[in-house]
Every structure is written in C-alpha cells, then in structure tokens.
C-alpha cells in the first residue's frame, strides 16, 4: 500500500508540474502574441476631405499632380506623410483623382507627357491616362479617390 501511495504522489506532482507549467506557458505565449501583433491591428486614420487646390490649376486633358501632407501618428512618433494625387478632367466639370502609387508593389508612378502614359520605374508598369493598365505587371488600375468640388476648390476623400 505504501508503494501505491508513493506512486500516486509522484503522479500527482508530475501532472501538477506539467499543468502549472503549461498554464504559465500559455499565458506567456498568448500575451506575447497580443503584444506583438497589437499595433498592426490598430485602425488607421479616419475619413476626411482634404483640399487639393483650385480647379483652375487642372489642365484640360492632362493629369495634373497635386500634393498635400497628412499628419499621422506612427507608434510614438508624429510624422508628416506627403501624398500625391493626379487629377484629370476632360470637360472641366467632372474630375477623377488617381493615386500615384503603383498597384504592383507600391512604387510611385509619374505621368510621361510625350508618351501619354503613367510609368512606374520599378518594374516598367504602364497605365493610360485614366489609370488603366496597358503594360507590365500591375494587377489592376490605379486607385481612385472620391472627388468633390466646392466653390471652385477640389477636395479628395482620404483615410478610412
């Protein structure tokens, strides 16, 4: 009987050690995951209309570049990020605003006037005047912003 008691005590201690050890491991592991991925899941800035400038600046039938800065909080650092938008109009009434970020892998595209296309220098992606892909690896047209005109001023919707 003594032997059996000794065996059960040993078994009890063994399961207690594995149980408590496992629990501590799970708490550490779960905390570490939450801690590491936390900032990645944080929502970006909220939607706001940003004023680009007067509509008179937009040349008819030529994508015109507007730039503005956005204040963002990244980690503990306040940064100003420069955003560029190409605005195109063919009738001076309706406007489209395109992002200059290549849809392939995020390099910046620029409008080449003599060739009538947007060109991305990273992997030779090409887009036509309305941002549709004409050559190279980009999987979809240039992203567009919602545009509105108020008192002859252009606004685009950013964030969200």
């Amino acid at each position, binding site marked *: 009987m003594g032997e059996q008691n000794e065996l059960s005590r040993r078994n009890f201690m063994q399961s207690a050690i594995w149980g408590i050890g496992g629990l501590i491991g799970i708490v550490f592991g779960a905390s570490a995951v939450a*801690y590491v991925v936390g900032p990645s899941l944080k929502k970006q800035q909220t939607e706001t209309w940003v004023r680009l400038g007067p509509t008179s600046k937009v040349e008819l039938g030529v994508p015109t570049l507007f730039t503005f800065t956005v204040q963002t909080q990244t*980690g*503990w*650092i306040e940064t100003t990020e420069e955003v560029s938008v190409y605005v195109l109009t063919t009738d001076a009434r309706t406007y489209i605003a395109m992002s200059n970020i290549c849809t392939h892998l995020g390099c910046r595209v620029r409008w080449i006037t003599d060739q009538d296309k947007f060109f991305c220098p990273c992997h030779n992606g090409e887009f036509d005047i309305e941002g549709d892909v004409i050559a190279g690896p980009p999987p979809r047209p240039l992203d567009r912003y919602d545009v509105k005109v108020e008192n002859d001023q252009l606004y685009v919707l950013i964030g969200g």
Partner: protein
Amino acid sequence: MASKITNWLDERTSWRQVWDAIFLRKVPKVNWLFTLGSASLFIALNQAITGILLTIYYVPTPDHAYDSVQYITTQVPLGWLIRGLHHWGASLMIIVVVLHMLRVIFLGAYKFPREVTWFTGVGLLLLVIGFGFTGYLLPWDQKAFWATTVGTRIAGTPPIIGDYLLRIIRGGTEISAVTLVRFFGTHVWVLPALLVILIGIHLYLVIKNGISAVPKKGM
C-alpha cells in the same frame, strides 16, 4: 504514436538519458530553501522572454527611449504587463539570488566538492547586479538619469584609474546618447551571453556533483 516518435528520437539522440540525468536524479531529503536556485532560473527565463519582447518596441536613443517606453506601457496591448513583469522580475531576481547565496553559505553547500559551483555563482551574482545597473538607465527618465549619474560617479572614485573608469563606462565625460546605447548593448548582448555560459557551467556542476544535504548536528 507519440511514443513512436520519442523512441525514434531516443534511438538517435539518447535524449532520455539526458532528461533522466536532469530531472530524475537522486536528491537528499531537503527543504524549500533548496528551491531558490530553480526560482532564480525561472525568473531569469521570465526576464529573457519579457526582455526580448521589450526590444520589439524599445529604441535606445535619447530622443526615443522615453517615448518608446511610454508607448509600450500605455499603447501596446499588454505592454504594461510585459514591462511590469520585466521591472518587478528584476527586483525579485536580486532578492532571490541573494537568498540563494545566503542559503548556500549558512548550510555550507559551497564546500568540497562544490567550490567551483560557488565560484560560478559569484560570477552570476555580479552579472545579475550588472543587469540591474545597465537596465536601470534604459527607461531614460529622471530617476534613470540621476541614478546612473550617481552610479558612474561611484565607479569614478578609485584613485588614479577612477577618472578613466568613469569615462569608459559613460563613453565620454557626460551621460549621453553614447552612454545609453552602450548600456543597452551591454544589457541585451554582453551580459546575456555571459549569463548563458555561466548558468550552463553552474547547472552542469549542480547535476554532476549532486546537491548537498542539510548538515546534521555534530558533523
């Protein structure tokens, strides 16, 4: 199935022999004071895990150190917990390690054949104090700055070499960006590397020599 894998592994690595030597070794009848060494090891493990996690956000430069620590504490999910475990673990480490040393002294466990275990233990105690000293500066707040001012001044008190010593520790005459990074580098690379080596030797000797029994009266 599970035993199939462990048997396969055992045939090739003899891991069971190692496991048994570490966890199923014979020990004399002892009391709870004999767990202080294991407790130190557990806290060291806690410090390593939480310390590694802290470096994911911490930046050791004067313009970011304080803000990144505040960011960890107030913005990162469970950042307060990770930092808290590291902060309080550090204090607990000093307490437990000193108690461990006192137990070894009062129960005569440092005697033959365990002198070398004691020597490595002295080294480990110094390392732990080194961790405390270098880690204290890293939050880069007022307390950290002035504690390090005082601490490095103390290092500067010996005659002749004192001034050099102070400048070597600070990396210049003042506490600066250079001081902060070298304390950081020491805290996360130099001391941990030395700690792993010394813990390895310390534990090898504990297992090799077995632990001492509680001394009996008249012996």
